[in-house]
């Protein structure tokens, strides 16, 4: 590439070039899917033939694929290639049924690494950077996914993996790490331990760029993490079903994540009617992979709620932008008949400078009455001598939450650092309600 901004030529495509490529890849993918027993049967029962899918306008004829389909065909039933052609397998945990398995060929892995490298290049990572990955390795795609992407770009890549915070900080210092991948709650934890160790990230470390994802968080949380660590933090979106990280990523404009439309066809649908919604409106993200071999997925319902940001991006990429995830269509809390998304609560809490970034929502039944308790960590800067000020703070948080979610929660202030951090995705909601 002659243009330093882009890692791949496809980033600079015009809308019509991109759509021509999408159409060609969609037809090839559908044809290839006829090797999958699952999709052959799906098409047959829908009375559909591969020749019915000729252009992007025909996409809507294809039935949706769901997580349940992945579970029902566990482990290899959706694959479109023989197992002998696969070189890697990733799997999600099976806490709510069969785990799901995602297979990759060597080409899939190479294309995945390319997508991650493209994302990192976009936010200014270059081969002379040092990239430290604090994500769990193993089955979780945030480990190997970023590892291979960062290596593809040519960075010195440190597979520090999750946990052992003191060692992470030592590596930051000793290896002069410039780019870090961490989930937002762990980024806050890193700062907490830096404070305890007397490390000033601006003075003592070389950190410049932070990649955050895998956990819904508000804009305020991002700004707060940027202030703490003295970095620019970029949102990353991925899911193992699509490959892993690298599906969508923010550009330096930090306003929405470009989804790579040479890899995926994007639809946003109403989660109830499953009809498409116009750009700008929130709905469920539905993705079709058009650049995968082992296990392409057609019209996969991600359960993630988001919207397409209308308008062009000043960065010059026509790949459309997804807004930050608004939660999942299946992690919505229904309390006393009211629909609540945890992100609504987070947005309220982050307006209080007296609070740290961690919180825990507990739903429980008391005297046959369902209620919500929100535990919030007070920030290190809060003066703990003034009892009436603490009480006032508690009341103010309660009032703001009630205005947002229309239910009065019980707010509990807890000391900084006392809410347990998980090292994968943070658990923000505990449901201890009696089931009737």
């Amino acid at each position, binding site marked *: 590439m002659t243009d330093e901004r882009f890692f791949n030529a496809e980033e600079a495509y015009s809308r019509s070039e991109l759509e021509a490529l999408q159409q060609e890849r969609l037809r090839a993918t559908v044809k290839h899917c006829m090797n999958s027993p699952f999709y052959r049967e799906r098409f047959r029962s829908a009375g559909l033939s591969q020749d019915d899918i000729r252009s992007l306008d025909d996409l809507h004829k294809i039935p949706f694929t769901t997580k349940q389909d992945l579970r029902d065909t566990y482990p290899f039933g959706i694959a479109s290639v023989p197992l002998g052609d696969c070189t890697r397998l990733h799997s999600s945990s099976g806490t709510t049924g069969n785990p799901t398995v995602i297979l990759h060929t060597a080409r899939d892995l190479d294309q995945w690494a390319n997508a991650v490298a493209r994302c990192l290049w976009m936010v200014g990572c270059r081969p002379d950077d040092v990239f430290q990955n604090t994500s769990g390795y193993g089955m979780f795609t945030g480990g190997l996914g970023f590892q291979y992407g960062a290596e593809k770009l040519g960075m010195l890549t440190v597979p520090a993996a999750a946990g052992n915070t003191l060692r992470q900080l030592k590596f930051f210092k000793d290896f002069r790490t410039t780019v870090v991948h961490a989930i937002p709650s762990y980024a806050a934890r890193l700062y*907490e331990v830096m404070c*305890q160790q007397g490390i000033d990230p601006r003075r003592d470390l070389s950190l410049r760029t932070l990649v955050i994802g895998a956990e819904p968080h508000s804009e305020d949380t991002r700004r707060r993490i940027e202030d703490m660590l003295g970095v620019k933090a970029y949102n990353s979106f991925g899911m193992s079903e699509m490959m892993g990280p690298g599906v969508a990523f923010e550009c330096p404009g930090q306003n929405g994540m470009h989804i790579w439309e040479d890899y995926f066809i994007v639809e946003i649908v109403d989660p109830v009617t499953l009809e498409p919604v116009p750009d700008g409106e929130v709905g469920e993200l539905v993705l079709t992979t058009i650049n995968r071999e082992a296990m392409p997925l057609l019209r996969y319902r991600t359960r993630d709620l988001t919207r397409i940001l209308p308008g062009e991006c000043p960065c010059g990429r026509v790949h459309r932008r997804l807004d930050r995830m608004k939660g999942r269509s299946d992690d919505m809390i229904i309390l006393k008949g009211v629909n609540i998304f945890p992100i609504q609560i987070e947005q309220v809490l982050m307006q209080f400078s007296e609070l740290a970034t961690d919180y825990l929502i507990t739903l429980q039944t008391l005297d046959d009455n369902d209620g919500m308790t929100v535990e919030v960590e007070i920030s*290190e800067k809060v*003066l*703990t*001598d003034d*009892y009436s000020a603490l009480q006032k703070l508690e009341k103010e948080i309660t009032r703001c939450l009630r205005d947002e979610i229309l239910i009065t929660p019980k707010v509990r*202030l*807890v*000391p900084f650092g006392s809410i347990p951090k998980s090292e994968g995705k943070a658990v923000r909601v505990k449901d201890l309600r009696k089931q009737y």
Partner: protein
Amino acid sequence: MTIHQLSVFLENKSGTLVKVLKLLKQENIQLIASTIADTAEYGICRIICSEPARAFNVLKSAGVAVTLTEVFALQLDDVPGRAADAIEIFSNEGISIAYLYSFLLGGKGVLIFRTDNADKARDAIVRNNLRAVPEKDLSELI
């Protein structure tokens, strides 16, 4: 005129207070006085101790939610009615007491308190010749 006090925010669950006290014990820091104000969910433990600045750093680096605050410490004769006389002075000047506790040290009563107006309180103490306890005297009296 003021001395340093630690204010520790404690969750109301077993083991939180002992954690704080053990940290001070390990560092050989001695308590001179302490008091806990509690609610159902959390409490504030206020502590006067030897070497308050070092105690603050010890607790802070162990992740304890602690603030170092300045409070007034008045020495009173060990005679009935001295506390009433002292508080009356503040009351007459329209100064409110946010919290107050007292203890005996070396045969003298010591009154610890915070007011809603530190400048006015300081002024009242000087004009009425009340005896403020210097911080170094506290540790010497232990």
